[in-house]
């Protein structure tokens, strides 16, 4: 009924009374009316000539009948270069050069005109020979230098003449106007003969000297350097690359030293803060672990280590409800958004003291598949209550504080810079992830999350090892090169080899494991700085129970191994 009604009236109308929102109505941008119609100008097939051509060839093209072109439109792009010529007088006065005869200079200028200063071509076509002397070899730079020197001197002398002339003109204008002009005319005529471009002569005075700058030596040096660069041998190129690699290494090392020092300083202070870490929690009688506010958990918590202990203290003070398919056969799992299984053993009311007992249900904490396919389990931890009963929860949930959490939010955190490589490896492994920013499993149940976290941790370790291998391989390359260099300094190769064999070298291999657990786990796991301390155990007392944390090894699962204190 409602739908029918809605369909009957337009969408715009509905939105008008629903909310005061502007309605977009498309307005036609162009309406053809009779008024707009104009007379069409026809296109005609018209012949045209171009002033750039000397042969008066008539070519045809389509043009609008109302348009007239005097000259071919693209003629203006057919620009010609005008090269000023010197007079004989000017040559003897300013342009003499011991290395050049006038004839050769003339020849050069002829070519310059012909090829419009394309010096590479000029150089190519340059074959000046005189009957009496042998032709000199001229490089491109020689030719350029000659041309630019001539032009420089010319423009300098001419501008000087022009200056003095204009002065003269001003002074003598009234007196000997006629004589002057005739004289000037003579001069101009003389120029006309020699330069063949009188109308361009005036502007040529204006061309500044700087326009003709040319530094022969600099040019030669530039070319020779380029030549060296191009004629490097393969070995030279390789050597340069290796040198660059080493230089970069040195720089990177410097930076690393600085950051490492800072890290050390920081870690040092962290250790100082966290060392007195024994915490006792006394839980006095709580009426059926309900209200958090009056949960009389008097906890003596080291304020600096609040996170771990307060979380665990809360765990003890009430019912822990987490998806634990301890009895999955009962079918008491859950869908989205609810608790999954009733924990065996309901929380006893009137807990006076509790003891936390953590143990993995399966042997050695290994996550293995049960015989039944429907039975996959996360690593479990049992929390023993004072009255003897115990609560079994997924170990990953033990540390949660009170409140409600999304399972997928509690997956292992990952440093942002590792995100891309980890995702790539996950793709390669064919693991299907949800398309969120952080890689997450498709069905983040506790059991799946356990495995996913382990996988991610393995990947992080793998990335570290691969990085190390790659770097060492590069190092080996440059070391090999260095070694070869050293060998070449010996009189013979055999001699060098003897020196090496005499030294009786055995590999010294550092134990790298320490480094890896530190750099990868230290950042990625909530265990924090403890991971760096190898074989160091740390005792924490939480809620009456003690457990020890061991730094995780590469092979073992990441989860903190917890064991009961005797």
């Amino acid at each position, binding site marked *: 009924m409602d739908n029918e009604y809605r369909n009957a009236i337009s969408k715009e109308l509905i939105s008008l009374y629903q909310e005061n929102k502007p309605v977009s109505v498309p307005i036609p941008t162009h309406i053809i009316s009779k008024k707009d119609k104009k007379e069409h100008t026809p296109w005609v097939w018209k012949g045209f000539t171009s002033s750039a051509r000397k042969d008066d060839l008539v070519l045809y093209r389509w043009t609008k009948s109302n348009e007239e072109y005097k000259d071919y439109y693209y003629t203006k792009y057919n620009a010609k270069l005008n090269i000023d010529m010197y007079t004989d007088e000017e040559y003897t006065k300013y342009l003499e050069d011991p290395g050049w005869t006038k004839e050769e200079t003339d020849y050069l200028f002829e070519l310059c005109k012909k090829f419009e200063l394309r010096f590479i071509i000029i150089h190519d076509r340059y074959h000046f020979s005189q009957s009496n002397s042998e032709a000199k070899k001229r490089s491109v730079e020689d030719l350029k230098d000659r041309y630019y020197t001539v032009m420089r001197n010319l423009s300098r002398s001419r501008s000087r003449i022009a200056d003095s002339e204009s002065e003269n003109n001003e002074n003598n204008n009234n007196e000997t106007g006629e004589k002057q002009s005739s004289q000037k005319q003579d001069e101009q005529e003389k120029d006309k003969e020699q330069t063949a471009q009188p109308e361009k002569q005036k502007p040529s005075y204006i061309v500044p000297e700087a326009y003709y700058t040319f530094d022969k030596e600099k040019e030669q040096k530039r070319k020779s350097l380029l030549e060296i660069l191009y004629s490097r041998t393969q070995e030279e190129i390789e050597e340069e690359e290796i040198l660059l690699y080493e230089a970069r290494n040195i720089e990177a090392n410097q930076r690393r030293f600085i950051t490492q020092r800072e890290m050390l300083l920081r870690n040092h202070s962290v250790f100082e803060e966290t060392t007195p870490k024994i915490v006792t929690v006394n839980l006095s009688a709580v009426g059926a672990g309900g209200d958090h506010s009056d949960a009389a958990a008097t906890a003596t918590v080291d304020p600096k280590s609040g996170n771990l202990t307060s979380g665990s203290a809360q765990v003890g003070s009430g019912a822990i409800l987490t998806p634990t398919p301890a009895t999955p056969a009962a079918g008491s799992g859950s869908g989205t958004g609810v608790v999954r299984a009733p924990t065996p053993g309901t929380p006893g009311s009137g807990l006076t003291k509790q003891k936390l007992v953590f143990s993995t249900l399966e042997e050695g904490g290994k996550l293995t598949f049960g015989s039944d396919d429907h039975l996959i389990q996360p690593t479990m931890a049992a929390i023993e209550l004072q009255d003897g009963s115990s609560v079994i929860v997924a170990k990953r949930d033990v540390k949660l504080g009170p409140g409600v959490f999304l399972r997928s939010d509690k997956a292992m955190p990952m440093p942002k810079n590792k995100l891309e490589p980890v995702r790539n490896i996950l793709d390669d492994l064919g693991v299907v992830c949800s398309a969120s920013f952080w890689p997450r499993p498709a069905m983040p149940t506790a059991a799946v999350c356990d495995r996913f976290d382990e996988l991610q941790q393995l990947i992080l370790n793998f990335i570290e*090892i691969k990085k190390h291998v790659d770097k060492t391989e590069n190092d080996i390359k440059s070391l090999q090169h260095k*070694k070869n260099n050293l060998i070449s300094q010996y009189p013979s190769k055999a001699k060098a080899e003897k020196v090496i064999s005499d030294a009786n070298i055995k590999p010294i291999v550092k134990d790298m494991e320490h480094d890896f657990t530190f750099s990868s786990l230290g950042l990625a796991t909530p265990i924090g700085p403890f991971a760096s301390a190898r074989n160091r155990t740390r005792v924490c007392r939480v809620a009456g129970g003690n457990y020890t944390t061991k730094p995780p090894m590469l092979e073992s699962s990441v989860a903190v191994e917890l064991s009961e204190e005797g």
Partner: protein
Amino acid sequence: MDVEIKLHETFIDSNRIFKSEPYEVSETGWGEFEVIIKIYFPPFSGEKPISIYHMLKLYPPENLSKNWPKGKAIQNLFYEELIFSDPTEEFYEVLTNGSSTKDVKPEIPLKSTALVPFSIEAEADEAKSLEKAIATMKKKISEYREKMSNVDKQNSILKQEIATLESNLPSKK
């Protein structure tokens, strides 16, 4: 339980609040936007509301978009678990035994269906594939560890060789 569903702000009344089931929104739209689903728990539970962010994409996934049958619905399903850590007694009762109004306990189905792909079976499958990936990764790591020890050995030999060569250099005259 109240559920608030925040749509893109260009929708009319983009904040929809539901007091009861079904928590459903039917709208017409296009493109993609983030839907914020905020769940408010009953006051006696003492829980804070929790937000779930869901990227709604109203077009077929890129790798399948070419031959997507016309008119076929696009599903963006995701699975999430809520962990109630340390709930009140009363809330605990409701969670484990069903509320007073409904006597249904939520559970994960045993087998996947087209409508609900998440099941105990799917969980097992994913765990299996993850375990396979873990095994591959472990193998890869052990391979690389071996490689690493080789490379390290080579590196240290080279370093020492260079040191001996340097110290025994024939003096230049």
